[in-house]
């Protein structure tokens, strides 16, 4: 049986202006699991993620690897829970890409040789060699997202938390980023907060639906994402890829492609009526 590595119990959180962002949140995540936290804007997804490595602390209990988050174990837990933020401009604050990737390792107190080795390894794995000495503000959004991922992967965390990983990305960059997430070893636990339902469907077998700071439902991705009424009630939609799959749309397209001859070789059975051009 897989080990329970995140356990959130009766979590409540309010911002200083008294906005209640999280209300009585309960859920668990198992080792190696991919969980998507979906919900409309302002549902509390980002706030919830910030509790998973102790950046925010609400009332209730958050246990990571069986340990309740506290001041004493926060450093250790932050090294094991890597977080990729929504806006890469928030995550990339150092003067160069290399320095940004090395930042976490320096904070862990690793020696210089090891840092250089690990950073270079991640840079080559993610194809970032050309950006190594560049300043982050010279990169495109897609490149910044990749570097953000590198800053976390270099720490080799056991849990990876993504906050809206594909927001504002063009389809090509989104596909590349999704492929990168898929390549992350399956032993690592991934938690993805998003309102991109298609992304949730493609990457996560389990879904947690959050709205107005409450857990609305939790379950198998197919069951949750096929519930049109539920999703629409929370400003979400059934992902087009799942809808197509469910209605057999993919098969139909394949059949059409196979059966229909190319346009040039098609015979026009009914000749055009005379004088049609004048009508």
């Amino acid at each position, binding site marked *: 049986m897989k080990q329970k590595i995140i356990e959130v119990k009766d979590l409540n959180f309010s911002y200083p202006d008294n906005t209640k962002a999280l209300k009585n949140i309960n859920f668990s995540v198992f080792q190696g699991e991919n969980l998507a936290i979906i919900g409309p804007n302002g549902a509390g997804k980002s706030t919830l993620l910030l509790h998973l490595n102790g950046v925010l602390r609400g009332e209730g209990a958050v246990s990571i690897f069986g340990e309740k988050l506290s001041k004493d174990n926060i450093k250790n837990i932050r090294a094991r829970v890597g977080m990729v*933020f929504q806006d890469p*401009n928030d*995550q990339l604050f*150092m*003067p160069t890409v290399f320095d940004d990737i090395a*930042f976490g390792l320096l904070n862990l107190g690793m020696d210089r040789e090891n840092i*250089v080795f690990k950073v270079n390894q991640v840079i080559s794995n993610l194809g970032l060699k050309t950006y190594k000495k560049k*300043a982050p503000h010279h990169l495109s959004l897609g490149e910044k997202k990749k570097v953000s991922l590198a800053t976390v992967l270099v720490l080799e965390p056991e849990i990876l938390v993504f906050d809206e990983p594909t927001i504002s990305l063009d389809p090509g960059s989104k596909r590349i980023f999704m492929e990168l997430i898929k390549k992350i070893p399956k032993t690592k636990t991934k938690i993805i907060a998003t309102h991109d339902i298609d992304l949730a469907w493609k990457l996560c077998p389990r879904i947690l639906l959050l709205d107005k700071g409450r857990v609305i439902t939790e379950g198998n991705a197919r069951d949750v994402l096929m519930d049109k009424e539920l999703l629409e009630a929370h400003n979400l939609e059934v992902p087009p890829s799942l809808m197509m799959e469910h209605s057999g749309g993919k098969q139909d397209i394949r059949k059409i492609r196979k059966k229909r001859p190319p346009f040039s070789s098609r015979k026009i059975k009914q000749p055009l009526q005379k004088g049609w051009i004048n009508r």
Partner: protein
Amino acid sequence: MIISLGSEPSNVRISAVHRLDPRVKMFSSVILFLAIILTPSSHWHKFLVYSLGIIVLIFASHVSTKALARKLVFLIPLIAFLTASVFLFSNRSAAGNILILWNLTVKSVLCYLSLALLASTTEFYQLIQSLEYIRVPRVITGVLTFAYRYAFVLTKEAERQRRARESRTFGKQSRRERVRVVANLLPQMFFRTLERSERIYAAMLARGFDCNIRTISFFRFRAQDVAFLICFLIVLGACFFIL
């Protein structure tokens, strides 16, 4: 400004001066400033040697002379202020005032040029790391690093706000109206900056930040750095003490 924001050159022609160790460049610049400041105003021949040295370095570094000249424009208000102060508040004769003005102008132009040369041939973060080597507190270097990094983000944000304002501005606005709009935009910028700083701090905490800024540097002295430093000190020493 000496370091111009928003137009950071990313593909400058790399010269031997660019390749010098930033610490050597920083040290040489500080020594040169001291020499310029401590040279008496009557020793004009020494100023001539300093100027020649700076000009040689400017040409050797392939830095655009036009860009450097443009940067000198920022000195005009300072010189104008000095001129006004000298002539309005000094009790000396006209000749004495002119000598003081010459002294201040030459020294400030030479110092400014050498600083501009240093900034044009050294990347900003290398300058910051050089400052760390001369034991400038990490808090200061950290603040400078963040200020430089986010100046680009903030200028872009300000530009977006300006465009949004212009797209909803119809007809010509009076100066008073424009000032009012800018005054309304400034607090918004302040709050956005504050929110961003909180998010950045959260991102730093998430990667184990414990309020100590740690950096990794790859500086190392090479033969050409040592050779440059020795030549520089010999020429400067000879000019300052013997000429």
